[in-house]
């Protein structure tokens, strides 16, 4: 029990291996049967939000997504949007899973299921462990593109009590608010956030409805 070899092999290797088997390998095998969706398949169906962004910012779109409203552009925007979501650490203040407790299904929408996370945009998963802002896995359609543009420009313009940072670097000509337009990253992050939950058909309630029902801000 006090020899190096025992400590190294039993505690260091065997116990660690056992924990990986129980805590990681078993869950992996349990979820193995769920089919994996590649990004190519995901981006076959170009989202209406992406198409609308192309109409809203035709010049930016031509510059950064010259292929137009196509699966290839959509794929590029999703990938770039997710990268931006990671680079800005959005996932440190927004979670991406709905729990079956604490009335979350009423507030956000259907409880998350493992199958929703078996795709190319989940390397690694973005579950998150803190909610300063609301969960985002059912964000699709909760807000309009216009709302997101204004919100990324300055969240407090839209939600006065918000503690979310500004993201002027999602805009070209950020120094000149009259002529500021979304840039590549701006289009991408809105496309990505609007994609989250787009595979779920219906919501019991949206954030917007709920706040209105409560006489909220």
């Amino acid at each position: 029990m006090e020899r190096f070899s025992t400590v190294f092999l039993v505690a260091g290797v065997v116990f660690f291996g056992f924990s990986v088997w129980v805590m990681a390998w078993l869950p992996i095998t349990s979820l193995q049967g769920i089919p994996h969706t590649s990004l190519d398949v995901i981006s076959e169906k170009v989202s209406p939000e992406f198409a609308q962004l192309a109409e809203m910012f035709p010049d930016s779109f031509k510059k950064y997504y010259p292929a137009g409203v196509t699966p290839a552009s959509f794929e590029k925007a999703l990938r770039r949007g997710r990268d931006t979501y990671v680079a800005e650490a959005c996932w440190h203040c927004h979670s991406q899973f709905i729990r079956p407790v604490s009335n979350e299904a009423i507030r956000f929408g259907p409880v998350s299921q493992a199958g929703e996370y078996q795709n190319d945009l989940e390397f690694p998963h973005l579950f998150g462990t803190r909610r300063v802002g609301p969960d985002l896995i059912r964000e699709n359609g909760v807000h309009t593109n216009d709302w997101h543009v204004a919100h990324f420009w300055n969240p407090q313009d839209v939600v006065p009590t918000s503690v979310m940072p500004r993201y002027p670097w999602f805009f070209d000509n950020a120094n000149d608010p009259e002529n500021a337009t979304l840039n590549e990253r701006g289009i991408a992050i809105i496309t990505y956030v609007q994609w989250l939950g787009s595979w779920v058909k219906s919501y019991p309630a949206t954030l917007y409805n709920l706040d209105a029902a409560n006489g909220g801000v």
Partner: protein
Amino acid sequence: MAAQTLERPLVDEGIVKAFFAAGMLFFLVSLTGGFLFSLQFLQHYPFPNTEWLSPGRVRMVHTNMVAYGFLTNVFLGAMSWAIPRLTGRPLFFGRLTWVIFWVWQAILVLTVVGILTGHAQAIEWGETPTGFRPHSFNLADMNWAPVDLLVVVAFLLVSLHMYTPILKAREKSMYVSLWYFSAAFIWTALTYVMGNFFPEYFVPGAAGAAMTGLYIHDLVGLFVTPVGWGLMYYFVPLIIEKPIWSHGLSLIGFWALAFFYPLNGVHHFLWSPIPMYAQYGAVISTIAVEVVVTTVVVNFFATLIGSGQYLRDNLPIRWFYTGMIFYFTTCLQCAVHTTLTVQKIIHFTDWVVGHSHLVMFGVFGFWCLGIIVHLWPKLTGNAWYSERLNHWHFWLSAIGLFVMFWDLTIAGLIQGFLWQSLAPWEQSLIASMPYWAVRAVAGTAIVIAQFLFAFNMWMTARGAQPAYRPVAQPA
């Protein structure tokens, strides 16, 4: 311990000093980041339009630099001091220590710059850039230095360096500290590889979440905790000059930690789409860990019986035992809030943020600071420039953390219940604002304390005349 003629000194004191100084420097970087981030919560962030100082990025620098900048540097310094003394043999070879030192500092700088320029990895506590794109090892796609690979290389070098004296000593039964160190090096390397590469490239979604949960937890449980306890088992008996109370409890503490701690992983994602059996298992073993923790804490407090005056007279011992009280608190808290019932309310809230501050700063940070307070005069050959500043440092840190912990815990409960009540989301922000203000103030006290301490270290190293020395009476 065989007698042996040494061609070089047993301990390279220069490297211990360098690790401590670097650790403190990165601690100040981390705290500055944490302080700035706390201002964002008060809607008064000073650099709202500077991309590389965006609050989200600064937050990652804060947490990463505490783990890899502060704790790891101080741990490496303290182990470079303790392991040769425990084994009677110097580390692998002299210059390697400096190679490790500079490789590690390069990793830290690349991490800070990488995170601030938008190359972070989406692994909690492993935001250290991978350099490669997710799900692709394509060299052409590389956008930053492969820092994660460098970290693995550094861990292997550290293992080679520090296992050598342990293996050379060939002792039939090692001292407790060495059990913890011997297990910690292999655990850390395995944990790091598992957490930083598998979810990023091979295991997506919920199963990947199980792995990152394991990673977050093992980083605390299999790296920081064993190294921290190993150092406590070394320094506490030395300072209070008597052996640890019970060898049996030491054995139970180590082996039970080794078995139960890594089984906690999934408790970071309870009520998630990860299979429920893994969640139940994690909850049960988390509660088991509380039993382990109690044996270790009882052992240390029993050791202190009859030596209570050290708490008053000896600053390092006060740091260590304050840390142990926080350790017991944080683990007890863990056994309660890991239950699925309590999780419903407190998960995703500031409760967890308070918990992690208590663990990383209140326990392991306090131990590291105590070790520096103890060793710095020996390393520099000078008495502390100011004992009084050291006491200010202790009390500002302890009170600041105590206030921050309770403030965030209460804020977490308020947030959790407001969310459950289906109040508009903004209500939880409005309700949190006063608590975030208190958090910023408590944090400021902690930041000021560490700057005072860094100043004190600097003046001591320079050999400045101790301040507040009684004025010599004219003859």
